[in-house]
């Protein structure tokens, strides 16, 4: 087990290294100058005054030293948890900007990922029960997964938000409120959360349902199921076993899909103007804030890596096969 996780850890460390390097490289080898874009918004019209400011900020962001120094410095400060200063939200440190946004994303993502996973799996297992269900539920699930996150978001915002007016279609909570542990605030925040959550949830839900449906059919055909049935075990038990075993690949699937769902949440946040990482990335893009962009990217990568690691560990715990193989047994 230790060795297995050790191997995974090496893999993740390498991934992290690659991610950081790519992340550092992209903005530096592509056109666009963050300082220019920052000053672009300052209404400083005098060329000389502007030139002086450019110098100042280039020095401040450390863009005036050779690339290799920038790269090493990048790693150095990274280990000190310093992701630099946001250009767009100057002078806020990137870490701070991200930490402000991350809770929103998490509040959206965690329930969406977990609930869609649980519900999708249940539904998929349920759909595999009969031909009729299968033939109706399955295409529906496929359509759901085929739906672009943002479009579903747009439809929901329009249908349930603008037309029906049941839920607010933008923001995380009413502007009339200040965050507090009050009923008014929580219910308001919840109402704002429903639509973005729903659009994430539905798309992911479809995917899990399909995955589970296919896996459970596979499991129901497995030898152990046949044996149980031959010994007269009731459907319930057979299904329960099949479900449990089909969950295992779905756990790995969860790790694999994390990236996609995270990306989906970025789009959803944009649609609903939900103030999470997605909106932040979009703004960072528009403002050429490459420090923030790098930070956000790293945040996501680290998040995904950690989640993967958690899933890996979880997998080892729930699947005796991996655990025993790793102990060198059998």
């Amino acid at each position, binding site marked *: 087990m230790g060795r297995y996780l*050790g191997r995974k850890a090496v893999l993740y460390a390498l991934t992290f290294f690659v991610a950081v390097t790519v992340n550092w490289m992209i903005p530096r080898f592509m056109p666009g100058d963050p300082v220019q874009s920052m000053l672009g918004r300052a209404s400083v019209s005098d060329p000389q005054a502007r030139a002086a400011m450019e110098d100042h900020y280039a020095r401040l962001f450390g863009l005036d030293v050779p690339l290799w120094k920038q790269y090493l410095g990048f790693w150095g400060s990274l280990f000190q948890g310093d992701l630099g200063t946001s250009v767009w939200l100057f002078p806020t440190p990137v870490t701070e900007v991200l930490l402000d946004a991350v809770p929103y994303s998490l509040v959206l993502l965690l329930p969406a990922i977990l609930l869609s996973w649980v519900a999708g799996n249940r539904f998929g297992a349920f759909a595999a029960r009969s031909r009729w269900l299968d033939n109706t539920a399955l295409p529906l699930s496929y359509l759901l997964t085929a739906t672009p996150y943002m479009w579903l978001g747009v439809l929901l915002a329009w249908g349930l938000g603008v037309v029906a007016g049941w839920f607010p279609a933008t923001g995380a909570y009413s502007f009339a409120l200040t965050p507090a542990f009050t009923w008014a605030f929580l219910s308001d925040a919840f109402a704002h959360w429903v639509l973005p959550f729903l659009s994430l949830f539905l798309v992911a839900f479809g995917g899990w349902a399909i995955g589970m449906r296919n896996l459970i059919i596979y499991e129901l055909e497995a030898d152990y199921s046949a044996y149980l049935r031959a010994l007269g075990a009731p459907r319930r038990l057979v299904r329960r076993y099949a479900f449990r075993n089909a969950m295992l690949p779905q756990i790995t699937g969860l790790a694999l899909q994390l990236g996609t769902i995270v990306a989906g949440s970025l789009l959803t946040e944009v649609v609903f103007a939900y103030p999470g990482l997605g909106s932040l990335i979009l703004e960072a893009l528009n403002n050429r804030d490459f420090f923030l962009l790098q930070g956000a990217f790293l945040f996501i990568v680290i998040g995904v890596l950690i989640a993967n690691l958690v899933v890996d560990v979880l997998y080892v715990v729930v699947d005796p096969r991996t655990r025993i193989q790793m102990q060198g047994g059998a």
Partner: protein
Amino acid sequence: MLTLDRVSKVYRVGTFGTQPLNAVRDVSLTVPPGVVVSLIGESGSGKSTIGRMVLRLTPVTSGAIAFDGRDVAGLSGHRARKGYYRHVQGVFQDPFSSFNPIFPVDRVFDMLRGAYFPGLSDTEWRASVRRGTERVGLDPGQVLGRYPHQLSGGQLQRLLIARALTLDIRLLVADEIISMLDASTRIDVLNLLGDLRAEGLGILFVTHDLALGTYVSDTTVILRRGAVAEMGPTRQVYASPRHPYTRGLLASVPRMHRTWADADAELDSAAGPCPVHSGPGTAGPVEVGPDHFVGCFSDDACPE
């Protein structure tokens, strides 16, 4: 013709290949022309590994395999290898998976044509394929052009032998070629091997079935955990097995006309001490009779 000299194979398994797995240990044997050598042993004893090393499908870790005195491992380059395969061919356990399921069976022949008979005209080639097919007792009209699933396992195995015979092979590695076949077809394939042997073909016959091992072979090699437990002329090994492992195997083989209990009683009488440790104390198998070698009893019956 083929000699294995203290051949060992270590697979690297586990993370980053850190764990060694000794699949074959210090195996030495020879396969002269016109002789069938059976390699017998339980699952995982390294039989197939030896076969694959001879066929150059797996590299040797240590020791030497020589064919006609030329080191087989030293054959480098596509040409040299092709030359080797002209004389040495293999047939494997699963006839169904030996054929690419989506092509007609002729494909196994056609693959050879490209590499070995580029000059042959279509008619010449077809004739030679037909000849090969007939030689293994098949009706070419019935089998050629068909898909693997349309033929029986016995037919397929024979086709594979026919394929090997298209080349001028002198050594055939037959890896469990009968274990997936029905009792009635097995015997046909075995008979075919016997006929080929009579024509001077050397055969390395890999099996786990003792009964079938005796039927065609001249020399029997009993493998255990990658090492030779007992090796000798077939008749002698069966008549007076010296290694406890061989005896155990023989006692467990179900026989039509003798019960297990009877076999136990019969074999118990021939027990003796480990010849390796009671004798000269060398590492390798010890000769206990003419051409009859016995390895260390290891673990169970021997201190080592």
